């Protein structure tokens, strides 16, 4: 079996006394879309933020990305490893223009040609952002801000892109667009780890899925299989 791109083993995380992640193990292989679904408070965001180091030190277990152990690295170092995250709630830089936001994503890249290529790629993915290039990101609509967040993450040139609830607070039509774009990014060679509450949409585009419940992985398997699983259908898809 081939080596996983991202492999998490027995990951623990505590918020003080609260055991937020309980021995989580998962693998993401190159080229896949993997989704983690779960309800509020299941630990989805915690899992992503622990992986990218933004929550500080995890309390146990290992995280390996492309053969390198990263669980003890600080977040700005991890950001330089072609592993990048679109944060929950579209954390854009509100007072910077769209273009400045994107350039901030390329902060660690010094090759001007490469930055220009990526910028063009982002604008081809999201033509709307090109129209709004000089507008402050804070004045954009929710969907457009999400585009900025995704584009900014792409500017880092990631091989693995982690998305934290890209559908949160968006209209159904916009969600559809975002998911189509995620599929396109994946086809262009970026591996995707997608965390979602909107299990319906996520399972449609994913290859494999994990179900997270109160800090534990309770189910895993091919997305199509999980979409037909009775308990999943009941709990997450709203179909009885």
């Amino acid at each position, binding site marked *: 079996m081939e080596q996983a791109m991202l492999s998490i083993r027995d990951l623990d995380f505590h918020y003080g006394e609260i055991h937020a992640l309980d021995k989580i193990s998962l693998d993401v292989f190159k080229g896949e879309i993997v989704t983690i679904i779960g309800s509020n408070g299941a630990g989805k965001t915690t899992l992503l933020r622990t992986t990218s180091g933004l929550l500080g030190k995890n309390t146990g277990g290992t995280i390996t990305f492309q053969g390198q152990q990263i669980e003890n690295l600080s*977040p*700005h170092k991890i*950001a330089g490893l072609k592993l990048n995250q679109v*944060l929950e709630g579209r954390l854009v*830089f509100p*007072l910077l223009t769209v273009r400045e936001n994107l350039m*901030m994503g390329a*902060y660690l890249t010094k090759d001007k040609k490469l930055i220009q290529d990526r910028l063009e790629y982002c604008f081809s993915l999201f033509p709307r952002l090109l129209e709004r290039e000089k507008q402050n990101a804070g004045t954009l609509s929710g969907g457009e801000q999400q585009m900025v967040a995704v584009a900014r993450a792409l500017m*880092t040139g990631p091989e693995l892109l982690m998305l934290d609830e890209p559908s949160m607070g968006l209209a159904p039509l916009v969600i559809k667009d975002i998911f189509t774009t995620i599929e396109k990014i994946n086809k262009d060679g970026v591996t995707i780890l997608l965390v979602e509450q909107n299990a319906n949409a996520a399972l449609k585009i994913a290859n494999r899925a994990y179900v997270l419940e109160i800090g534990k992985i309770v189910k895993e398997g091919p997305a199509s299989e999980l979409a037909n699983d009775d308990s999943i259908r009941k709990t997450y898809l709203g179909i009885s």
Partner: protein
Amino acid sequence: MKKNGFFETKKGKTIAAAVILALLVIIPLLMDNNIILKQNKYFYVLLCLIGIYTIITSGLDILFGYTGQISFGHAGFFCIGAYGSVLLTHPGWGLGKLTGYVLPPILSILLVACITACIGALLAVPASKLVFHFLSMLTIAFNQIIYLIANNFSWLTNGSIGITSVPAVTILGFSFSTVSSKLRYYYLVLFFVIVLLVVKTHIINSRVGRGLIAIRENPTAANGCGINVAKYKIMSFAISAFYVGLAGGLYVHMIGFVSPDTFIQNTSVIFITMLLFGGSGNLVGPILGAAVITFIQEGLQSLADYRMLIYGVLLLIIILFQPQGLSGLGKTFSGLAARGKGGESNG
């Protein structure tokens, strides 16, 4: 799209800066020779003070306006700069008392600015982990500690009596003594103001500057973009402290006297007030704030206690109607004008 005004183009900005600079050099010279606007010598002291406060507010702006970190303790850095330079140059105190040797004031001002920057960096190590009110408390405590040291370590600082006859700045035999000519000192201050403002502009437009702005906008997202947030916050504190330390040195060699009362907590609040009044996060705001507040404070001396009342009302007006400070006035007016014309501009 709104058309950019002439002064928003690069060429326009350069010309405007050159004109202002020429006026700042020539007008006091003409005044000194009684050609125009006959003024007493006190006026130059006012100009020097504005220059010094401009340096301080610009330094504070790097920390507050660009990095988004609040500090209510900048009078502490000001104090370190002032007392540091006195102790290194005064024949009767500090270095002079201990060894009999003193440093030339201009050298000590620069050295003390560097020392203040180091202290700023040290303070930033715990401060970089704090936000909002916790950071305010820490910087207030810092201010208080420095003040108490200046006030109580009498063997070092002469306590609350203060130290008089601080030596004047001399560069290559050319004296900047404020006793003989206040105009000369004005030019010295002007020189430092210009250098430090140019440096500030370069810092803000550099990679470091972009990192600082990203931290202000959103620390988590900045971290995700690969910016070492703690390191940049420490840098910001150090640069800010450098500016204020240098201003402290300039201040004390102008006044020729130093006492702890200048560096009470209230002084830090005034620095923040100047910055908010002028507008933070740009080049002009700190200058405007320093100038207007200094004029209000000094010009309204005759009104005694009512001064604070006027001061308070003005501040309230600014906060309510012009939250971007005086430097945002241009934008507000052009926005109003555009609306008046029936909304030609869409932004």
